[in-house]
């Protein structure tokens, strides 16, 4: 399936403006903070973090999962262009693939640096337990990077253009499997009531669509604005509508998750914990995830007047990310903080925090590591824009939609948009 469209021109960004250099400088500082955090952890051990023997995965994992899930979703634009034949997104396909790769790398860097023994990375790459979803994920992640790299190459190398749809399909399929794998890391932990649910896989897929779209909208706005390239309303309006649909999709899965849990009596404890009396987790769920991160963005994105404004669209995207962060916090930390039930029907206590909600306060080191990895993802992205032709010179409305001018795609002269 090949789509003929008006020719889009891509050009590297100049990368000499004070704004760009300031951006690079800022990102480098963030990366430096992350490295410092990793160094401190390596030297003193994990006791300088808030993580403990009850909450073993904390803030770094939330950052990492957010980036990994968003990476898969950042591929949305490319997928819609190559897989679903949406020509509007075609000019954005390259940036979308690039962002997908850099976000994933950022997330993986955080995960690796948070290992108790990051120095044993080579062990992780040479000893595989094929029963472990974690080991599968190592292949899913590296496979994703490889497929998207090939996909990008096909897009950027004229002679390979005709294989773009094939690579697009492969990448799309792979990203679904990848997010399923990420969700399954939790979905198959039978030990913990919050996790033992197959619905976590589709929930993570839905989250990847919405979080990835939100990041992509923000990055698109920033890079066009920052480089002074025209960005029409057409593509932006489509993206914000899609974001709204994805946010609603996540809400739907969240609803199904909690309703099915409420149906099972044995899960009433964890449900009451998250929904009613879990303190910070209940607050994050209702106030941040649902209200700030879902309902308000939905209102902003679909309001007939407000949604015309780019600032509003950007704000909504930002809120979706804040909501996603809260959602992952509730899933990852909340799921561990809720005590394991070893003896149903008994109240339990011990010197090892049995039967009580585990305490966890993220430390500065964890924030530094998470922010450092995020900074690294965007640093790679910003540098890549300078050296290769990822960014279209214009996304003005008549340049993205061949139908806007009423001319058929096939007859449109190839030089249009130059």
């Amino acid at each position: 399936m090949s789509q003929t469209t008006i020719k889009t021109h891509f050009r590297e960004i100049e990368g000499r403006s004070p704004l760009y250099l300031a951006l690079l400088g800022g990102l480098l500082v963030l990366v430096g903070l992350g490295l410092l955090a990793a160094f401190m952890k390596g030297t003193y051990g994990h006791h300088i973090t808030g993580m403990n023997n009850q909450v073993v995965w904390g803030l770094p994992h939330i950052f990492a999962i957010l980036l990994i899930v968003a990476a898969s979703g950042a591929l949305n634009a490319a997928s819609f262009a190559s897989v679903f034949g949406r020509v509007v997104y075609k000019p954005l396909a390259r940036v979308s693939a690039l962002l997908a790769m850099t976000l994933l790398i950022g997330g993986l860097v955080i995960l690796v640096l948070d290992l108790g023994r990051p120095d044993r990375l080579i062990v992780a790459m040479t000893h595989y337990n094929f029963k472990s979803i974690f080991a599968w994920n190592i292949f899913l992640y590296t496979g994703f990077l490889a497929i998207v790299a090939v996909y990008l190459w096909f897009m950027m190398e004229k002679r390979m253009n005709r294989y773009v749809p094939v690579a697009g399909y492969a990448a799309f399929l792979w990203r679904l499997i990848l997010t399923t794998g990420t969700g399954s890391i939790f979905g198959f932990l039978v030990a913990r009531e919050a996790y033992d649910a197959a619905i976590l896989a589709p929930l993570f897929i839905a989250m990847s669509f919405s979080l990835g779209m939100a990041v992509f909208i923000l990055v698109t706005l920033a890079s066009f604005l920052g480089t002074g390239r025209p960005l029409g309303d057409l593509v932006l309006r489509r993206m914000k509508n899609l974001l709204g649909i994805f946010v609603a999709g996540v809400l739907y899965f969240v609803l199904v998750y909690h309703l099915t849990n409420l149906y099972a009596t044995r899960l009433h404890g964890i449900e009451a914990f998250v929904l009613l009396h879990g303190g910070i987790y209940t607050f994050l769920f209702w106030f941040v995830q649902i209200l700030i991160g879902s309902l308000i963005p939905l209102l902003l994105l679909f309001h007939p007047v407000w949604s015309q404004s780019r600032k509003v669209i950007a704000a909504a995207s930002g809120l979706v990310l804040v909501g996603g962060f809260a959602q992952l916090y509730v899933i990852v930390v909340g799921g561990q903080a809720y005590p394991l039930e070893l003896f149903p029907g008994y109240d339990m206590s011990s010197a090892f925090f049995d039967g009580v909600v585990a305490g966890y306060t993220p430390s500065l080191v964890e924030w530094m590591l998470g922010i450092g990895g995020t900074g690294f993802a965007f640093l790679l992205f910003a540098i890549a824009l300078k050296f290769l032709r990822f960014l279209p010179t214009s996304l003005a409305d008549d340049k993205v939609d061949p139908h806007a001018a009423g001319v058929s795609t096939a007859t449109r002269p190839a030089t249009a948009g130059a």
Partner: protein
Amino acid sequence: MSNESSAKLSRRQFITGAAAAVAGLTVAPGVFLLKPADAASPNSDKPRWGLLIDTSKCADGCTACVRACHEENGVRSLGRPKTDAQWIRKVNLTDQASGHEHSLPVMCQHCEHPPCVDVCPTKASFIRPDGIVLVDKHTCIGCRYCMMACPYKARSFIHEPLTDQKPHAPRGKGTVESCTLCVHKVDRGDGTTACAEACNRDGHGAMVFGDLNDPDSEISQRLKQYGSTAIRADLRLNPGVRYQGI
């Protein structure tokens, strides 16, 4: 050139393909956790080591087993309860219906189908043919996925540098550890564990160590006569540590 129909077709083909792949992924890992968990099969010629804990004999407030274990294996508190390692802990239970109180030790249950081993990406968590579940400290990368997966909260992560270890119980910063069923004692033929020894020494006799596969062993005899409970039996992990009186 119109691509509408071909786009639709491909989309449908594509979605079915994706669904199949996704289904394969989501079902497969579960299968491993649902392997038939037979009870220990007596009469097998291989030993399967286990512990039987009689909670009616386990004294409230006694922590002899905990102290003995940590002494035997060089586990020391660093004064930070949340990150200190605990190989064995005393758990106090109060029956919500009757108010009846129990106290009992919980350690790694040496599951026959250990989730910690299933999830460990590097095979650092492994189960020996005699049923003892261990962590290879040389291949553990400190991902803590096994801790997420263990239903008994049996494992500890070492959060900071350690000094002063016992040669038979290697430990290390950034790796995960748990009760080894005193594998060094088992392998040299002591026929007991430090916790069970201490419990006997203090006159409680609440812990029996032995071979679950040997029908003549004390542990098998007692299991046969009185039956036992596995913690979280619903998960069908067939733990090697069994309880009486709960």
